[in-house]
């Protein structure tokens, strides 16, 4: 009995069927293929981490941002210095022609207006060529020295584009924001609704330093003001101030250009990217804070960025994080080479809203997850179909053998066909000796069965199960149980499964008849 049990265990230990094994094989192959593809994608950077991708994109955009801002500020400074030199020369020529000193212009509105008209041409020409929203000069003279705060007044001209719009500069109307009314009218310049005849130096941060500049190199005297409100208007501006020197090198005032918030915003569009719109800023960096309230913001479409408050800066492996606790941005910054009125350096900044990047990251993860799941499901189906196709002829061939077909049904697989042919051609009665002995012993024990027990055995040999017997033999289930108990005892088997193994062994050897012979 022990050997029979071992045989049964051996059968159980034979493991999964060939079809299942093939399925696993194919699936493993698919997984290996997937791993290879993923490794290749990772190695080539196609499938890199979103943060890593963002880092690369920010690097490229930051280079563009820095180059654009550096170039704009550099060009304006160069044009401002050239304009300053022209204004200085014109001033000298005017004073010489009038035969007066510079200080004698004070309290002489008519001559000041005349001077303004003369200096309008270099101002207007520079405005046409420069990338700015306004242009100005203020000289250290005033039409009325007796007025309170007269020391802050600077006679001069301040021209601005009116109704600035996203179109070419040549189509913009120029208006007179500061300058004598007589000057504006004779030049047919529309006057700003908040016009005043003179500039107030107190409202232009750093202008006092520039207008009293002692050096000889204009480049050293140039300053960018902090972002400041244009008096009585809704606009914020950043101004470049350049000293105006006369022929003797004495500072006579200042001139420069204006970049309004609107102009900057129109000049620097957002750059679309997979991580959201990338924004351009020129912002003061004070320690680890980005001062938004002093920043010029490019277009901010797709973000909630406004020029208020500060953003705390914290460096990271892939990007720098800028946050005010409520809104967070990811990006890069780089200090610009520009002197500022308050000494706080300006930086070129590229930002991406954190929210849009996180959405991209999440979307990417979900896409990969869904893709992987769908791919695996598809591959599972393919593997199942392939395995079935492979096993189908083998099963057919085996079924034919089991059914006792006289002709061998070829499986199409040479090794299997050879094995089946070998089994088929083996002489009868060549079972292993121990198995032969067990079969013989079983047959002998079967001969001891009663007629009813033999009938029940016959049902089992015909493929019926225990629950079919009561109906077939017209006996009760409890009687069947009794017969089964006797059957098992006489045949020395412990279970129905064991009995079925014997039945199958006899059937496969074509010796089923021995079980019923008496």
């Amino acid at each position, binding site marked *: 009995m022990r050997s029979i049990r071992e045989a049964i265990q051996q059968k159980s230990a034979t493991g999964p069927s060939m079809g299942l094994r093939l399925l696993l094989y194919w699936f493993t192959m698919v997984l290996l293929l997937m791993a290879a593809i993923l490794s290749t994608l990772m190695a080539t950077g196609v499938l890199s981490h979103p943060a890593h991708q963002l880092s690369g994109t920010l690097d490229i955009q930051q280079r563009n941002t820095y180059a654009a801002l550096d170039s704009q500020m550099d060009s304006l400074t160069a044009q401002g210095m050239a304009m300053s030199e022209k204004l200085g020369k014109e001033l000298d020529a005017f004073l010489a022609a009038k035969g007066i000193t510079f200080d004698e212009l004070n309290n002489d509105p008519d001559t000041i207006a005349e001077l303004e008209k003369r200096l309008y041409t270099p101002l207007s020409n520079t405005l046409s060529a420069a990338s700015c929203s306004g242009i100005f000069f203020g000289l250290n003279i005033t039409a009325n020295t007796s007025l309170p705060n007269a020391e802050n007044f600077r006679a001069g001209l301040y021209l601005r584009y009116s109704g600035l719009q996203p179109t070419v500069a040549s189509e913009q109307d120029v208006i007179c924001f500061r300058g004598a*009314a007589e000057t504006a009218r004779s030049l047919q310049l529309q006057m700003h609704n908040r016009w005043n005849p003179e500039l107030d130096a107190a409202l232009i941060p750093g202008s006092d330093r520039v207008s009293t500049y002692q050096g000889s190199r204009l480049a050293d005297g140039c300053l960018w003001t902090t972002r400041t409100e244009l008096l009585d208007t809704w606009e914020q501006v950043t101004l470049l101030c350049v000293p105006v020197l006369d022929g003797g090198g004495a500072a006579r005032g200042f001139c420069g250009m204006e970049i309004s918030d609107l102009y900057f915003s129109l000049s620097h569009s957002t750059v679309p990217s997979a991580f959201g719109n990338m924004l351009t800023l020129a912002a003061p960096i004070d320690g680890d804070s980005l001062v938004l309230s002093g920043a010029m913001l490019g277009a901010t479409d797709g973000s909630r960025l406004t020029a208020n408050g500060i953003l705390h800066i914290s460096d990271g492996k892939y990007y720098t994080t800028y946050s005010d606790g409520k809104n967070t941005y990811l990006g890069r910054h780089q200090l610009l080479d520009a002197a500022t009125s308050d000494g706080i350096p300006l930086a070129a900044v590229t930002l991406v809203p954190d929210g849009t990047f996180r959405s991209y990251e999440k979307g990417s993860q979900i896409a990969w997850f869904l893709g992987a799941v769908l791919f695996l499901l598809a591959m599972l189906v393919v593997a199942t179909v392939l395995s079935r196709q492979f096993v189908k002829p083998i099963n057919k061939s085996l079924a034919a053998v089991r059914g006792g077909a006289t002709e061998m049904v070829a499986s199409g697989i040479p090794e299997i066909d050879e094995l089946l042919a070998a089994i088929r051609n083996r002489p009868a009665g060549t079972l292993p000796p121990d198995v032969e002995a067990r079969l013989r012993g079983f047959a002998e024990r079967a001969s001891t069965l009663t007629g009813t027990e033999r009938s029940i055995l016959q049902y089992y040999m015909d493929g019926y199960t225990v629950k079919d017997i009561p109906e077939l033999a017209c006996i009760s289930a409890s009687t069947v149980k009794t017969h089964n108990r006797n059957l098992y005892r006489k045949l020395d088997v412990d279970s129905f499964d064991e009995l079925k193994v014997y039945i199958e062994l006899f059937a496969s050897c074509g010796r089923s008849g021995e079980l019923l012979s008496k």
Partner: protein
Amino acid sequence: MKKRIVLCLLALALLSVMTGCGRKKDADPLTVTLWHVYGGEVDSPLNGLIEQFNSTIGAEQNIRVKVELVSNSGSIHKSVLAAANSDPGAPSLPDMFVSYPKTVLALPDQDMIVDYRDYFSQEELETFIPAFVEEGQIGGRQAILPLAKSTEVLFVNRTLFDRWAATSGASYDDLTTWEGIYALAERYAADTGKCFLVNDYHFNYFQVGVESLGENFFQNDGVRFGPAFERAWEPYAHAALEGGVWLQDGYATESLRTGDTIVSVASSASVLYYSDTVTYSDNTSEQVTIASMPYPVFEGGEKLVMQRGVGMCTTRSTPEREQACITFLKWLTSPQRNVEFVTSLGYMPVTREAFDTYLPTAVEQLSNPMYISLYETYLQMQGSYTFYYAPQMENYLDLETRFENLSRLKLMAGRAQFQEGAGTSEELVWDTLDSFKLDYGT
């Protein structure tokens, strides 16, 4: 088994859809652009309201309204047409822009803009004052939505007027009729050598004046120079030739700001641009009081005044963008908000409820004397004037622009001739008119 697979796939699809929705709300607000006229070069109260919208309703619904241009209606008209015609160097059309009917009529394709009836129910449109809504109906479509309306009034620098009146005997009653104003203008010019009056819209003066005298101003596609036109021309040209009327280009605010004129006829909305300071050429300044008075009329003429004020057009785009614009516009025209908006700019509200319920209270709370005076004038005119709005003519803008330029130029030339002694003012009045009619055409 199949059921389980289907359920799994559905669960995955649901997961992806849900995460997609979340992404849209958390970040990436839908930004819609706007070109408007409410503020121009000075502080713009609308921009403040837009910030309020962006931080409240806009934040909730992930909408951001971005002001791309604040200018005057003429400049916006030009930019809109350039954009609509894709002219070289032209910007893209914004999602919303302010417009008079003349701009919409000049568009190459009327379907470029939204018909508000697609987004506003009949009941919602009926909450607006009918005349304001009707003005925005073009080609059977509600192309323009009224936001704020204005009219024309007379502004007077009371400080300088009173000073001169003390010696000349001039009276505010003289400022109620055109005849009275021109008579004062001539006297003022004779006394001070300065202009008395500046009129921002000569075309409107003639248009409303002629209509108020019972004649049609327009004839076919041009202007009809009938007896009423001559009656309007005669005192105006006479005063101009005598030096009492400011003829230079630019807005009325300029010459009042420098004390070169003391009375102006302008849009009521220009109150935002008037300053209570006059600055003279020697850089000295003087605090003044600017007050409003009803639009002058001709003696015996009807009390007629131009209804002004652009409305808002929304550009056709995607349903999401259009809906975002409508959300903003409904917010801005809700009665209480509308009153807050218009009273900060010197306009009239556009809904009945705003007018009847909220405006009186808002006016009581005003503190700026210029605005108080303006709203008193509004209420005075509301009861006694008929509001006139310009007909929808495709060449309206062309007629208006040419009229403005040519009438000023002819009178400036006439003034120079008068100063040179080339003729009397009585003679030159008709010479200039003949010259004007010849060049302008009919």
